[in-house]
């Protein structure tokens, strides 16, 4: 069993060949006999009731098998939900009420894609419209405290006294718009019945969790539902929930008793699947003249829908990044007639850190201090709010190494001092954190008689490299070469497991695999017999001591600004990361670079625009909602500082979201450095920069 370590070795993805030859099958790719296609019809009004759906008008159209609407849809269990209680977003086609523009009102099922689409486009739907409210503002009359399920309010020290005693106070307000996950694969599900058993192939971030929600929703036993999800074309949060495609495909399969495939169109992905809510974030920072923070106040508001509870936890980094004697945080929720928002890559921390790290840069400016030095002077010894020790905190290493590689030391901190021809040039930086941990999962490992090991866990690979990483982890845990590991993932039948989300996929799955491997190795072995060990990590996780556990990064960037056009271009982007032991440097680097590109896109491009008169999202496609393209993105530097999370097997941390966090603030700070004008509202559009 002598094997070299596989963890820490850069390896191409296991499914790489399949993905470059077109053989990797995604949810909409599996050929099926007798397949019918469902096309979704969505509401065009933001609030009201359905007056009529004229099903007769399309029933005779070629190939149409039927229409499902609230009058004939299977009844759903109103108690079904995700992480925050019952979720009205799941209750599709249950009544005539329209809670937001883009809500599904009907599913047309036909023999072919073209026939389904033609009938869906034709289906006459009329509404009794009611006044809607989609106008987000922090001081909206319906604003209320956010549910305290996590990132609850904190209040330590005497905030007002510390602010009064501060030599410098920054008191500003930051805004971020609705943003959309925009995975390249539109949500697709195919559902069919095999006897009393519901089968589904679905694009999602966790087949086990999705299967439990689906079973609850349709009042089925869990053993009656199987959800598979072999290859997923990105998720970024939007596939963390039981999506409308799966609910509607299941209804279609149930009513028409044949396999039904529902693939959302791109505009429906915008209109119907999780988005990041708009935020408005007042911040006050108070500091002594030498830059030591006295007070941090961060009280963001975010929008949500009355259909589903949600918390955009913008103040999570605020509670842990910097030491201050007084820290006050509050999250406020503003219910509106909009698509229920949900987690998007770097939830809470991405918009929250834009506000906090922009405010820190403003504080450095007013103190006449190097923004890097300001961060270093406020490094906490323990959790600033919790008082708990840090399990590992290597932010300073990220800051110092990043600054050195970037050449930060020679920066003139005054704004608008660099010009190259007609361009203004500036640099900026930000520090970030993202919490790490693990959730209960079950893994089993079988020692086969041929000397290989079958490792089974209901993980998913959204493009994170999970297959490749878990294979390396299993190999090291078993002290064998990766060639002897056979990994099975992506199927709800493989047992309870956390989803690919919250930067907790790899840690959760690795923990279960590592523990199963340890127990297997402890057993007396008879090589002529198969032996299986199954482990559930629930109890192990309960025993993990409470500590401040986070990944960290420091982001540095250089931008050019054309003051005549307002165009901002990112010329350099460098991130140093402390993400625990790195399992696969090749794929981990890709992942954090991808996160930084998401942050660049958030900083400069992305904005879901809502027409307040109609309440509709008006740029629900890739022409109107631009995500960073090749030409927007420079070569990006990303590297890792030595780091090890002592509470988690192999010292690993999640790396999925930290890259996304911090980049927007670093770019906004660089734009200020170039132009002298603060950008407190994302995205940094041309009209906000042009002079």
């Amino acid at each position, binding site marked *: 069993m002598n094997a070299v370590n596989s963890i820490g070795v850069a390896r191409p993805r296991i499914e790489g060949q399949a993905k470059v*030859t077109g053989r990797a099958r995604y949810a909409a790719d599996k050929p099926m006999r007798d397949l019918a296609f469902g096309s979704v019809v969505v509401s065009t009004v933001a609030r009201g009731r359905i007056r009529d759906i004229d099903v007769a008008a399309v029933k005779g159209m070629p190939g149409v098998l039927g229409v499902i609407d609230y009058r004939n849809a299977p009844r759903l269990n109103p108690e079904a939900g995700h992480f925050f209680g019952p979720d009205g977003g799941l209750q599709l086609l249950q009544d005539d009420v329209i809670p937001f523009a883009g809500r599904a009102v009907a599913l047309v099922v036909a023999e072919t894609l073209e026939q389904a689409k033609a009938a869906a486009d034709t289906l006459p739907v009329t509404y009794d419209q009611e006044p809607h409210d989609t106008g987000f503002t922090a001081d909206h009359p319906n604003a209320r405290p956010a549910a305290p399920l996590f990132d609850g309010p904190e209040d330590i020290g005497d905030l007002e006294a510390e602010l009064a005693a501060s030599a410098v106070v920054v008191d500003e307000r930051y805004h971020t718009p609705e943003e959309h*996950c925009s995975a390249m694969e539109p949500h697709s599900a195919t559902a069919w019945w095999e006897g009393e058993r519901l089968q589904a192939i679905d694009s999602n971030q966790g087949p086990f969790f999705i299967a439990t929600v689906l079973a609850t929703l349709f009042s089925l036993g869990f053993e009656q539902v199987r959800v598979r999800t072999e290859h997923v074309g*990105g998720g970024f949060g939007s596939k963390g929930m039981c999506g409308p495609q799966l609910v509607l495909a299941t209804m279609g399969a149930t009513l028409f008793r044949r396999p039904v495939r529902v693939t959302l169109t791109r505009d429906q992905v915008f209109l119907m699947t999780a988005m990041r809510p708009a935020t408005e974030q007042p911040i006050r920072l108070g500091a002594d003249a030498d830059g030591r923070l006295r007070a941090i106040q961060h009280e963001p508001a975010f929008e949500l829908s009355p259909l589903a509870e949600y918390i955009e936890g913008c103040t999570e980094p605020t509670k842990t990044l910097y030491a201050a004697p007084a820290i006050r945080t509050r999250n406020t929720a503003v219910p509106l007639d909009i698509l229920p928002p949900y987690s998007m890559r770097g939830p809470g921390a991405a918009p929250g850190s834009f506000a906090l790290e922009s405010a820190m840069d403003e504080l450095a400016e007013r103190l006449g201090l190097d923004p890097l030095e300001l961060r270093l002077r406020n490094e906490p010894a323990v959790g600033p709010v919790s008082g708990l020790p840090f399990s590992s905190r290597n932010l300073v290493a990220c800051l110092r190494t990043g600054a050195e590689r970037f050449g930060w030391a020679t920066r003139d901190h005054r704004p608008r001092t660099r010009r190259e021809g007609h361009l203004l040039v500036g640099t900026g930086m930000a520090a970030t954190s993202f919490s790490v941990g693990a959730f209960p999962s079950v893994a089993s490992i079988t020692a086969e008689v041929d000397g290989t090991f079958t490792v089974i866990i209901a993980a998913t690979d959204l493009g994170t490299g999970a297959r490749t990483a878990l294979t390396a982890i299993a190999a090291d845990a078993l002290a064998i070469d990766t060639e002897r590991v056979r990994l099975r993932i992506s199927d709800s039948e493989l047992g309870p497991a956390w989803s690919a989300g919250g930067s907790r996929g790899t840690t959760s799955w690795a923990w279960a695999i590592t523990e199963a491997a340890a127990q297997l190795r402890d057993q007396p072995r008879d090589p002529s017999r198969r032996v299986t060990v199954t482990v559930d990590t629930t109890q192990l996780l309960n025993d993990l001591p409470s500590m401040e556990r986070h990944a960290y990064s420091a982001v540095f960037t250089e931008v050019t600004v054309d003051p005549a056009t307002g165009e901002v271009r990112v010329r350099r982007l460098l991130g140093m990361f402390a993400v625990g032991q790195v399992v696969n440097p090749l794929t981990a680097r890709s992942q954090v670079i991808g996160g930084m590109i998401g942050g660049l896109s958030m900083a400069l491009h992305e904005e879901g625009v809502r027409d307040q008169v109609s309440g509709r999202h008006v740029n629900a496609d890739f022409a109107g909602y631009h995500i960073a393209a090749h*030409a927007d993105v420079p070569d990006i530097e990303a590297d890792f500082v030595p780091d090890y999370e002592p509470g988690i097997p192999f010292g690993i941390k999640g790396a999925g979201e930290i890259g996304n966090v911090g980049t927007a603030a670093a770019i906004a700070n660089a734009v200020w450095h170039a132009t002298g004008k603060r950008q407190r509202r994302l995205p940094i559009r041309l009209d906000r920069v042009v002079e």
Partner: protein
Amino acid sequence: MTDDTHGEIVLRVNDVTHRLLVDNRTTLLDALREGIGHTGSKKGCDRGQCGACTVLCDGRRVVSCLTLAVAAEGAEITTIEGLAGDGELRPIQREFVRLDGFQCGYCTSGQLCSAVGMLAEHAAGWPSAVTADVSPDAPAPELDAAEVRERMSGNLCRCGAYPSIVRAVLSAAREEVAG
């Protein structure tokens, strides 16, 4: 059954002739995916905005979601399934794997077909928006990262694999064009 709304067409895909009955509204993308079973080409937007469905028609890149199947008759169509020779990855595919030019892989078929078409365009001397000298007798611009980024900007990648894709394209460029 041929009528006002359907027709039988012949598509040449990856050197194989396919006889198909298609709805006249069927896009080339849907004909490839649903009619022939080549699901490597992906539908990311169905509006020509993302590039995931890019295939080669007579060597030129097209977004197959905006091409009607009936209009593709007579063309030599190459999809991701036909990029590799006999089981061997071609250089650009090999470099995508080696340099991690993708994460989720959903845009990858489009990126690869687009890159092959783009390299041919460049080799033929076509300028791009970032080419400095666009005069008719100018030599072919040197293929650098800026040229690749500009020419590949019709292919979106939400995972953010762009830097690796550019490296992979540049690394494979010489072999691809020579081969």
